[in-house]
């Protein structure tokens, strides 16, 4: 294997994996903590992407600066949605009923968001060019926009990880993930933390969308594949495990990129599901699950 090929695979894998990690982190916050399987997760990514697209094309806002708008706006939307929809479903339900009800609710949300985007932006492909220039290093060449997107995604993921480890709120979230009842006995307000986490999860999805809009064309239907990938990463890394999602995303990115370079583009999905199956067989709770 030539050194250039190794560089291609490692850098390419980290680029893909960085994006996977961020979108999976958001889903893990919702699913790992609240058992809300938000299948509309990718739809928030799509909304974030369109918001960035509109801000950039209509007013010339730098796509990276739009993160400062899509992030807080989607966080707010997440808080409102949680208060209006999910809090009611979540209140006083047994865990099993909760998962299926939240699934139904999320499916509804998926259709509402897709059709809203269809009305606002139509089904025509939309896209723009940003930093579409080659960067030469280590004997290979990479698109600047992908490197920037992955770097931002990884930075946001790491910042969130540090926040969970260091801050008081972060500790409360981890406590709830580990033992919801014990955490409540210690005085942590479950529904408030749930709301915040839902908002943060949605914001992560939307921010990923903003980054993705720099790379791919948009249609109202780009969200679902990301939800599926995020779910794979969450399962790979372990439910409710933030470091697991981060590493899981990077591993999946590396496996996919390696399979494309060493074999063919067509086996990318096969390779990623093979790795998932393998890990589930060897360690059913995920790489870092307990």
């Amino acid at each position: 294997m030539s050194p250039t090929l190794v560089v291609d695979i490692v850098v390419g894998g980290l680029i893909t994996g960085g994006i996977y990690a961020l979108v999976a982190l958001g889903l893990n916050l919702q699913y790992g903590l609240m058992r809300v399987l938000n299948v509309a997760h990718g739809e928030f990514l799509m909304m974030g992407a369109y918001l960035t697209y509109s801000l950039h094309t209509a007013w010339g806002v730098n796509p990276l600066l739009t993160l400062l708008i899509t992030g807080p706006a989607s966080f707010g939307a997440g808080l409102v949605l949680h208060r209006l929809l999910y809090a009611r479903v979540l209140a006083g339900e047994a865990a099993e009923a909760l998962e299926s009800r939240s699934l139904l609710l999320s499916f509804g949300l998926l259709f509402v968001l897709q059709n809203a985007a269809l009305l606002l932006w139509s089904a025509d492909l939309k896209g723009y060019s940003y930093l579409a220039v080659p960067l030469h290093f280590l004997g290979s060449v990479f698109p600047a926009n992908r490197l920037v997107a992955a770097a931002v995604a990884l930075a946001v993921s790491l910042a969130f990880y540090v926040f969970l480890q260091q801050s008081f709120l972060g500790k409360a979230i981890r406590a709830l993930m580990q033992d919801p009842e014990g955490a409540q006995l210690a005085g942590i307000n479950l529904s408030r933390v749930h709301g915040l986490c839902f908002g943060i999860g949605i914001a992560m999805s939307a921010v990923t969308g903003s980054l993705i809009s720099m790379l791919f064309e948009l249609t109202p239907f780009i969200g679902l594949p990301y939800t599926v990938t995020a779910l794979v990463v969450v399962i790979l890394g372990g439910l409710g495990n933030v470091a697991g999602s981060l590493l899981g995303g990077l591993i999946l990115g590396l496996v996919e990129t390696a399979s494309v370079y060493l074999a063919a583009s067509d086996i990318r999905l096969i390779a990623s599901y093979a790795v998932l199956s393998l890990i589930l067989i060897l360690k059913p709770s995920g790489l870092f699950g307990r």
Partner: protein
Amino acid sequence: MSMKRREFLKTTAGGAAAFTVLRGKAWGQAKPVRIGYTLSATGPYSVGAGITQGPNYTLWQEQANAKGGLLVKGEGRRPIEFISIDDRSEHETAVRFYEKLATDDRVDLMLPPWGTAMNFAVAPIANKYGYPLLGPTAVSNKIKDLQLPYFYALLQQPDQIMGAFAGILKELKAQGKISKIAIAYVNDLFGIELNASAATALKEAGLDVVDVKSYPLGVKDLSPVLKGFKAAGVDAFVGLTYPPDNILATSQAKEVDWNPPVWLAAVGTAFPFYRDRFKGAEGVMGIAGWNPKVKSAGAKEYFDAHVKKHQKEPDRWASAFAYASLQILERCVAEVGLDRPKIKGMVDSTEFQTVAGPIRFVKGSNVSTPGMVGQWQKGEFEIVWPKSLATGTPVVPKPAWA
């Protein structure tokens, strides 16, 4: 509050009287010609459906109704009424709806859905109930194997398209402008068929294909493929693409610093969106079939009417054929009425003059339109091959990416 019996009777009687009057009035007007179809407003097919077919259906309906309706032989003009739903890009939804159109709604005519796979799915139903179906977006060598006498394909098929690709590449090679060709194709029925046709056509033309790579539908990164071609010194890129991967490949070529002298791709290149997305896309080649400069009667008028109604240009390949399919139906109905076997007879035996040029069917395939190659030059998708139909001359090597 309850309504008194007398009041109730009065209201009902009044309503019934009004109903009779209104009904009488409706009968006085011409009964609409009911035409059924599905198009994808949501799901992966919605992009193509919304560019190539939907706008032409509504444009044609508006134009016909502005004249008082569709001229039906022996009945005068009757307004066109569409009965349609969003098939959500699901084959089974489309199949069910066409079944319903034939048996329940008993529509007068049918129009096809968008895309090869969708046309394959509903063509047997149209055939079963004897509805002529003129498909402007069905591209497959297998269409003639289906043996569905009521199905017609207007677009050039893979063998013709790849014949044109091979034709222009052979000439460019003879001129010493290219030597190494590489092909990337989308790994589904469409891409596989185009690739098979390409292999034959390029081999016959004596061209050297140095690499062939496939990639899956919905691919997110084509840079490994492009880097490989670049490293192999490829100077003619041939992409057998759908629109999203076409756009991905184009943007990534620039991002990996690769600008081969010939960049030739399949579906998507002829969309005005593509031109606008890549700042003119100067020098990019693709499958062509039409532009407003072609000599066909009504081509320019069609272009202007499309822009006026939809505030967007028709694409430079299949849009005009979608409109042409409606012109063909319109002429048949005017000459033989709504008797569908008679319409079929006329479609089988007539050469039609349309905005997309002459169209004549032999065993359901349009034999009048040859495969064509176009190239974006200063905002227009000039037809550069075959020479007999050319509206411009090829510019090779293409300029640097904008």
